[in-house]
């Protein structure tokens, strides 16, 4: 099996490989995974990638909850060069070179086959809200207007991956197309697998080395193409591993608590 942090570091590499030199990548709270991926990409193949911070300066751009610590400015300095500007969140709708972002990381209580995400709540048998979720927070507009949102989940269970979400906080491919919204989720990463989208439906791209294709299918609430075999997720390369050491000096990725076993069902 895998050591603590292996899964998080693997996913940071997987996401980094998707990021482009021209991307603007925006962060909300607890975006350590995307932040790590963006910092990796900057070092490996996307030096011009821009990090945008919706948050207050004191949070800085380092990995981890630096926002509320006295030494907030200590480590951030080295990385803050990418956040010269304090952003205005409404600029998320701008198409100019100063647009807010292209890529945003989205998690949720439920994720469905077309990539719609639910942060609002789970309905009970009576159809009314039974379990309250975190709400739309900074996600709905940013993820709707970003051209290439990326989905993630800290576990991989049929409760999380459902045929149809109870509420839609961020629309998936078909809903976006119907509303005339550009783009859609390009990737969905979990502790067990990497999914992408074809014809507006989620499909398996690779399965992590520490688990099996059957396990992934068993833990997903809807059928995943392709029917045949799926490659193993390429592990971090030497240069990726070296870069991780630099961008995550405190080993904070290991603290994200992703469930390498996929989590309780």
């Amino acid at each position, binding site marked *: 099996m895998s050591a603590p942090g292996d899964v998080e570091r693997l996913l940071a590499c997987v996401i980094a490989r998707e990021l482009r030199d021209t991307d603007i990548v925006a962060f909300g709270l*607890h975006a350590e995974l995307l932040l790590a991926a963006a910092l990796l990409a900057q070092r490996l193949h996307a030096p011009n990638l821009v990090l945008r911070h*919706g948050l207050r*300066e004191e949070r800085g751009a380092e990995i981890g909850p630096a926002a509320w610590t*006295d030494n907030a400015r200590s480590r951030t300095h080295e990385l803050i060069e990418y956040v010269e500007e304090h952003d205005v969140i409404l600029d998320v709708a701008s198409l100019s070179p100063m647009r807010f972002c292209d890529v945003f990381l989205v998690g949720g209580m439920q994720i469905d086959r077309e990539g719609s995400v639910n942060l609002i709540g789970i309905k009970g048998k009576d159809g*009314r809200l039974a379990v309250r979720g*975190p709400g*739309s927070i900074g996600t*709905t507009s940013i993820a709707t*207007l970003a051209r290439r949102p990326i989905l993630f989940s800290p576990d991989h269970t049929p409760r999380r991956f459902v045929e149809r979400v109870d*509420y839609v906080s961020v629309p998936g491919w078909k809903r976006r197309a119907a509303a005339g919204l550009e783009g859609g989720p390009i990737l969905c990463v979990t502790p067990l697998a990497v999914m992408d989208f074809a014809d507006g439906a989620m499909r398996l791209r690779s399965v992590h080395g520490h688990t099996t294709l059957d396990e992934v299918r068993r833990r997903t609430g809807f059928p995943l193409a392709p029917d045949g075999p799926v490659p193993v997720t390429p592990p971090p390369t030497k240069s990726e591993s070296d870069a991780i050491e630099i961008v995550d000096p405190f080993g904070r990725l290991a603290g994200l608590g992703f469930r390498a076993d996929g989590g309780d069902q």
Partner: protein
Amino acid sequence: MSGENRRERVVSVTEAVTLVKDGAVVGLSGFSYQNPPMALVREIIRRRVRDLTIVSGPTSGIETDLLIGAGCVRRVITAGVAFEKVIPIAPAFRRAAESGAIDIWECDECIWHLALKAAAWGMPHILWRGGVATSLPELNRDLQEVEVDGMRYLKVPPVQPDIVFLHVAEADVFGNLRMAREAYLGRSFAERALALACRGPVVASCERIVPNDEVVEHPERTFVRGALVVELPNGSHPGGTSGRSIPDLDHYREYTAAGEAARKGEPGRYQAYLERYVYGPDNHDDYLKVVGGARLESLRMSVA
């Protein structure tokens, strides 16, 4: 001239809080752990105000959750109520949401900002692409989709507070409010959006009242003017004050444990929390004594 006869706008906690009436729409500062006007909030609870509509956030924290838990709130307008790493959904908010005890205007941070701008700019609505094709229209009778020239938009209505309470690092006696230099936020703040949308008074507690000359020296740091001012050091506790103090996470955990217990059907512990930290102390000074000076000292940020 330094405005000899200019009216000072310093008020007492009582004067400030008496301005809130049952059923009022109350704007509160507080982004996540930062700058909640807690001393004022606790006084509002002591006065047992009821049926408030709270506009806070854009993503709110303990200032909103405590008011909900104490039974002062009928409706919240926020993109979420959470305590960061401590708990992703604040306990009183979750409990009230699941029981239907409060109404929630389901919005995100952009829509929250636009609703306040619509009020400040005298607009009947603002059309916004973010949030189309989501469940927001299903959940908000007054946040519907419209189609214009073949494109779909959310029709965001104005949200206008009757009164706003803020906590800031510094203010002068004339009601000019500013953030700590160490915490400069850039060009838009929830605090400013609330103040500009407000139809009534804006009240700010501050860590320290500074001389007007200092304020004049750096006009770019003033982000709200003409507020009523109450000097209440540590007035954001257990929240932090940007650039001045960090949040008291131990206190957040204590509060969360009590709130989660109540949510799971054991209201006693939450009542105990309210007795110890809100109803017990007669005022903010008493509250600070209960918290303890050593604890407060440990939360202070070193100011450059």
